[in-house]
């Protein structure tokens, strides 16, 4: 009943705190050996779900299976999971070695076996020779690694990580993201990773569950989440996105024709062969998929909009141009790479420009 595709089965799990539905009737599977991220703004229920997996919270309804075994009757110390805490929870009265050996002492290993495992773990986290250090002599990154080693050394079936990189500075964080991903591949343990940092989730995960208000909005690979969000909330949460509201008039082949009032008709290529009924829809298109020019595109499958340039935001590697289009309150954002040191378009505020994009650049969302 539990194949490698459904190593962790979450079935109708809810957790309420008073009136707050922190986790609201969730059901999905996580595969064996997967790097799975729970992504969402703070308060979306991702940490509560992680604590339900660890056993620090008990579900009000539903059941969690890990490797086919129901978990709700098991306390945290009897579950095949280990956790890396947001605060790392390094034991301050023990040294590095004792911290890492902590869980092993409960597994009935002999002293030489423990010593060997600790040594191996210290090598794995690239801190050999640090075993006798006091934990208050460690830097933030080192504490993070010790917390990781302490959990991994117990050989859990699932490793739970609660925003483990949140407290590190940007450079160290990016370094640790890579290391963590490599480590996960080499040990082959299923990782469930909680983060509110979309970039972190996108770069590290096999699959990501985007959560909001206790619900899962979409579970997909990073690429699918970015290129094919299934609702406005996901589209807006991951990356930046322009939304243009309109009415779906007709579906011609695999292209939907959307009436956007004074802006005319927009053509959007549909992914999953057109189950959409005519009615209110949102055309979502990312800034980097738009092209800015002083004349409309001549390709008949492209969409064209005419507007006025208002401001430019300089982001280093690219510029964001904001273009006011008649009939819209919010200007459209257009991203353009900065291939040269002296930018071409400059900042001619008020200039009339054309925005164009091909039909397969945008996504159609039900409004």
């Amino acid at each position, binding site marked *: 009943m539990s194949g490698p595709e459904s190593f962790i089965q979450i079935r109708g799990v809810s957790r309420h705190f008073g009136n707050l539905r922190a986790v609201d009737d969730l059901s999905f599977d996580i595969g064996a050996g997967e790097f799975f991220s729970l992504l969402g703004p703070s308060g979306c229920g991702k940490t509560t779900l992680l604590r339900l997996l660890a056993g620090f919270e008990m579900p009000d309804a539903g059941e969690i299976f890990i490797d086919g075994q129901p978990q709700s009757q098991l306390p945290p110390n009897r579950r095949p999971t280990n*956790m890396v805490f947001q605060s790392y929870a390094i*034991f*301050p009265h023990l040294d590095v070695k004792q911290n890492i050996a*902590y*869980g092993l002492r409960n597994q009935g290993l002999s002293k030489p076996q423990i010593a060997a495992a600790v040594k191996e773990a210290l090598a794995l986290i690239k801190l050999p020779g640090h075993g006798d250090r006091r934990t208050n002599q460690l830097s933030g990154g080192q504490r993070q690694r010790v917390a990781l080693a302490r959990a991994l050394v117990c050989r859990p079936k699932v490793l739970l990580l609660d925003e483990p990189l949140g407290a590190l500075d940007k450079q160290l964080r990016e370094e640790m993201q890579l290391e963590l991903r490599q480590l996960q591949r080499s040990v082959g343990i299923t990782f469930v990773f909680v983060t509110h940092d979309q970039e972190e989730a996108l770069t590290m995960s096999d699959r990501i569950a985007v959560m909001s208000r206790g619900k899962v909005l979409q579970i997909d690979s990073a690429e699918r989440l970015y290129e094919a969000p299934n609702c406005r909330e996901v589209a807006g949460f991951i990356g930046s996105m322009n939304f243009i509201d309109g009415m779906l008039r007709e579906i011609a082949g695999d292209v939907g024709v959307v009436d956007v009032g004074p802006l005319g008709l927009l053509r959007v290529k549909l992914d999953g062969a057109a189950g959409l009924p005519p009615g209110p829809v949102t055309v979502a298109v990312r800034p980097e998929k738009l092209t800015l020019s002083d004349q409309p595109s001549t390709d008949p499958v492209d969409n064209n909009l005419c507007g006025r340039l208002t401001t430019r935001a300089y982001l280093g590697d690219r510029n964001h141009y904001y273009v006011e289009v008649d009939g819209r309150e919010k200007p459209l954002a257009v991203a353009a790479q900065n291939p040269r040191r002296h930018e071409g378009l400059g900042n001619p505020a008020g200039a009339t420009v054309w925005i164009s994009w091909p039909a397969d650049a945008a996504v159609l969302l039900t409004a």
Partner: protein
Amino acid sequence: MARRRGSDGLSIYATLYLIFLYGPVLLLPLFSFNDSYYVAFPLRSFTFAWYREMAGNGPLIEALRASLQVAAGVAVVSTVLGVLAAKALTRYDLPGRAPITGFIMLPLVIPALVLALALLVVLRRILDVELSLFTVAAGHVMLCVPYATLVMISRLEGFDRSLEEAATDLGDNAWQTFWRITFPLAWPGIVSSLLLCFSASFDEYVLAAFLSGNQATLPVFIFSQLRFPQRLPGVLALGSCILLGSLMLVAFAEWIRRRGTGAATLDLAPAT
């Protein structure tokens, strides 16, 4: 504004204040070495006689031993109860936490006299228990549990709750988590609580006077001796010994506390 030392009104006030606080206490050792029955200036010659007399005074040593026993027992029992209460109040979703905390802290604000009378009535009239050092200790436990609970609450709230969760996550059951994590981290608080309860019980007079039977604790015994002037210097010698003992105890407690807070500060600010 320039700050000058010693010449402004504030430092005169501070000096007088310190003399007022500690002057009388310092008279104790001074007169305990004075070769006279009367506690009065001018001082006569130096003597160890009162210390010898103290050591030979059977009832006095007996009262000292009673007080030490009661205080030690009270310290241990109150601290154990305090740890348990603090753990329940800080770690669990306890229904009625506020009223429970209120009831635990109540003895702090009830006058000792009222408490003593009420306990006496309960013990003698209702339960019909013989008065002894045990009844004194029971009364003192009631008085000391609030102190112990307060000390332990502040210590348990001071460390990251996820430390205990991490221990459970790594395979500890509740009992192992307590002994391997909670207890060592709460240790400085436990030491302060023991010392605090010990000294609170050791010099407590009102409850002891009401609840002790024919075995007096030290404060009760000393008070009974004040009627006899010739016994006073011996009491002064004992007082000096106790003063020395308390100073050493306070220094020890402070040393433990500094070690404890030192570790706690380092926990809160991980090095970068």
